[in-house]
């Protein structure tokens, strides 16, 4: 796998995972408070 493809894949995965963790993190924090 080329480095540029790897970077592109990592960015795509980081975006969707980041959005997921951010959203559920906010929900869980709200629940605790």
């Amino acid at each position, binding site marked *: 796998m*080329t480095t540029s493809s*790897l970077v592109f894949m990592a960015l*795509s995965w980081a975006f*969707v995972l980041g959005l997921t963790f951010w*959203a*559920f993190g906010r*929900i869980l924090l*709200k629940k605790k408070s």
Partner: protein
Amino acid sequence: MQKNHAHEVWGSRIGLILAMAGNAVGLGNFLRFPTQATVNGGGSFMITYFVALLLLGIPLMWIEWGIGRHGGRYRKGHIPGMFAALWRHPAAKYVGVLGLVIPLVVLIYYTYIESWTMAYTLFSITKDYWGRETQEAMVQYLQSFQSIGDASVHGTWKPFAFFVATLSINIWIVSKGISGGIERLAKIGMPLLFLFALILAVVVLSMPARPGIGASAIDGLQFIYRPDLSGLGRPGVWLASAGQIFFTLSVGMGTLQTYASYLNRKDDILLSGVATSATNETAEVLLGGSIAIPAAVVFFGVTGAVQIASSGAFNLGFATMPVVFQQLPLGNVLGFMWFGLLFFAGITSSVAMATPIVAFFREEFGFRREPVAWTLGAVVLVLGVLQILWLDYGVLDEWDYWAGTFGLALFAVVEVIVFMWIFRPENAWNSIHEGADITLPRIFKFIMTFVTPAYLLFIFCWWGYEDALPILAMDKSPDGGSYAPEAEPYILISRLLIVAFFVVFLFLIRLAWKRNAYDDRLGFTEPEDEEAADPHIAEQVVV
């Protein structure tokens, strides 16, 4: 004016998000997405895909949640009622007919496709297709299952039996209600779906290159994520990615709105909408992209995988994957997981399609949930049998085009205009922020008012010009080919059936409004004491 408060509630916020995500995560996440990414240039597709997610998908998700929750204030869980609550005009309820016909049509053929996944779950665990180790042999196996009259492999009774079983499970779940049926299914089905997908992704990505082929699963990922940006100048790539975002989030169907109608004004919809979209995207990009195409690349090489993807998503899922499983240790268990996850992806979407119709009959005619659900099941059974018998004539593709492609785009255009323009941007913006856990940057108000409608109108007009008109005139078929002369009468009958659904539902809407003495110009009356009017609200989990 609300004579019947047939309203239910969600048991918990996580249950709601799982059900919403289950509604969104469907067969398209695991079959359509990798196919689209592969045939539309990988990297270019992914860039345009994320742009469409931000400008089209997530804004539409918020708009649909907003329409649904606003309708729920007046105890309206169906689109005619929701539109009438937003737009005090006699036409509003009739425009909302789209939100009853589209989910019904899609429910009929989608349940049939879902029954294939149930059948293949069983065929996998029992090793029924073992020994058919080539793509051609598995395509023949699939065609024999689908095609009535081709009993070379499967008995004629099989597609009917699996369809009846799948439909019965669907209707049973719907008959148990929102909290007792749909939410419970989501809480079981969604974790299992993610578990199965994760195991399969790990197995596939750890597969070494095979002798004679020389490509590894990582080469499959390389193929999807190659940063080829040359496609950014091609409108087709932008349309394909926008279409994928559209289908994958289940917008334009009328189902997300019905789920959201079971919320109250104190519940957040913005953060929950993001969580739902993000869960769907994780299932699609991370898992959906890491299973079928990488597996096909290992066994058929990059060129072979592209050919398979170009021949259709079903060949990839129902022929290529079984070929792969036969070569792997515990392949029957992996096959069970693959088709099991497709089944869960399908059923969590199909039960959602039934809910607007059930809500309409319960709320407007006062019927009990169980009889409505089972009557709907009987209608779907009769028309689903037609789908089975007429599959070879392209009737399923025809319905999928008019309801599942063109219809969704049309409905989305209409709902954005009703919510953002007729209801007015300021009202819409304030409405979606009621009870919100996050505050959206103001730029999203501009996006939802102008960019999302423009994006949608462009897609709708493009598809209308490129496909809808030639298909309507029967100059080309939905798959890009031409209609066989012997298929044309069946295609025309299938179109007349869709027209008949519109006529029947328009009549029922008129009947409902007369029966309940609704005044279109006055709108609905909001229950004065919300908690007193709906005892379930006290039980709602408002995080």
